[in-house]
C-alpha cells in the first residue's frame, strides 16, 4: 500500500509538472514566434468571381453564420459551389 501511495504521489506530481512545463513552454514559443515571425505567410488566394450567384444570399448567410459559430469567428467562407 505504501508503494501505491508513493506511486500515486510521484505519478500525479510528475504529470502535473510535465503538463505545466508543456504549457509554459508553449507560452514561451508563442511569444518567440510572435516576435520573430509575427505574420502568417501570405497565402491569400483570389477566389474567381462567379459570373452569377449560384447560392441564394439567405443560404449563404446561414452557411457563413454556421462557419463563424463553429470556428469561433475565425473562419470565413471563400466560395460555395454546387457539385
Amino acid at each position, binding site marked *: *500500500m505504501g*508503494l*501505491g*501511495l508513493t*506511486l*500515486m504521489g*510521484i*505519478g*500525479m506530481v*510528475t*504529470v*502535473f*509538472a*510535465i*503538463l*505545466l*512545463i*508543456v*504549457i509554459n*513552454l*508553449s*507560452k514561451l*514559443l*508563442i*511569444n518567440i*514566434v*510572435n516576435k520573430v*515571425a*509575427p*505574420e*502568417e*505567410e501570405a497565402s491569400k488566394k483570389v477566389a474567381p468571381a462567379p459570373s452569377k450567384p449560384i447560392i441564394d444570399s439567405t443560404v449563404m448567410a446561414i452557411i457563413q453564420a454556421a462557419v463563424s*459559430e*463553429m470556428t*469561433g469567428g475565425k473562419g470565413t467562407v471563400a466560395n460555395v459551389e454546387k457539385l
Partner: protein
Amino acid sequence: MDILTKLYEMTAFAQTGGDWAFLIMILLAFVLLYLGIVKKYEPLLLIPIGFGVLLANFPGGGMGVAQATSEGLVQLPDGSWENIWDMPLHKIAHELGLMNFIYYMCIKTGFIPPIIFMGVGALTDFGPMLRNLRLSIFGAGAQFGIFAVLLASLAMGFTPQEAASLGIIGGADGPTAIFTTIKLAPHLLGPIAIAAYSYMALVPVIIPLVVKALCSKKELMINMKQQDKLYPNKTEIKNMRILKILFPISVTTIVALLVPTAVSLVGMLMFGNLLKELGAMTSRLFDTATNAIMNTATIFLGLSVGATMTAQAFLNLTTIGIVVGGFLAFALSIAAGIFMVKIFNLFVKKKVNPLVGATGLSAVPMASRVANDIATKYDPKNHVLNYCMASNISGVIGSAVAAGVLISFLQ
C-alpha cells in the same frame, strides 16, 4: 473405419482433451465480432481482436499466443521448454506458428504501440490546445483514476506490475495501456486490451453517466465563448503554422529529458504530428504514417492481442477483476477531471465548464464530441468542442507520462 478415425483425429474435436472451455472463448469471439460489426463499437480494433480470439481457440490450430513464464520460458508443441528470448525468429515461426511470430516480433518487443502513436500524432491537431493553454492542465487531473485503481488493485492482491497495468486503463488510451502492460504484466495483455478498447468504445455511455451524477445543470450551461468575451485571452497567436511546427520538436525534447521512459510514446506521437504540420514537404511520409503503416500496425496489434486470449489465459478471476477495475479507473478519471474544474472554478472569475475536465482522459476526439453533445443538450448554442479538445489532447500526453512513470518505477 480406419480412415474415418483418422478423419476424426484431424478435426479440432479430437484435440480438445476433454476440455471444452474453448467454446466459451469462441462465443466471446462472436460477441466481440457482433459488437464491432453490428454495433460499430471501435470496429477497426474489435473486429481484428475478435477474429484473433476466434483463431486462437481452436484446439490443434496452433494460433494462440504461448505465454512465457517470468523467466521467459515457453512450452513447445513437443512438450519441451525453451527460453523465448534465446529463440531466433524463424524458430518461433516454425515451432510456435504465425501468431507467436507476430506477437513476439511486433508486440512483445514494444514495437507496434509507438508506431500507432505516430499515426495518432499525424491525425491530431494541437491547435485547440495551443489556443486554450489554460485548459490543458485539466488533462493532468484526469489521470487520477490510473493511480486510484492502482492503489485499489494492490489492496485486492494484484502485484504492483499488474496493478499498474490495470490502472493505466483509466488513461483511456489503447496504445498506452498495451505498451505499459507489455512492459509490466504481459500475461494480462489480452483482458487489459479488451477492457481498454471496450471502455473507449463506451465513452458515449460512461461520460454522460459520470457527468450527470456529478454536475448540476447550471455548471453544464457555463458558456465558454461568453467567458472568453468577458475575460479575453491575453496571448494572441500571430503565426500558428510556425508554432505548430516548433511545438512537437520542443515537447519531445522536454519530455525526453525529464521522463525518458515516456519518450517512445510521446516522441512518436510528436514525430507523426510534425509530419502533418510540415504539410507538402512531408506529405508522402504523412500519408504513409496515417494509412499504410497505421493500418498494418492495427491489423497485427488487433489479431495478436486477440490471440493472447486463450481459454487458459482468459477464463479466471483476474479477468473479472480487470473488467471491474478498468471501469472504475475510467469513471474515476472522468470524475477527477470534473472535480478539478469545480475546485478551479472556486478561485477564478473566468469559469470553466466541468465538461472540459471530464474530457481530460484521452479517447481523442470521441470524448470531446460526447461532451459537446451534452453541452448542446442544455444550451444549443453552447459549443464546447474546441475547449474540450484542449484537455483531451493534453490528456494523451498526460497518460503517456503516467505510463512512463509507472514503467520506470516498476519494470
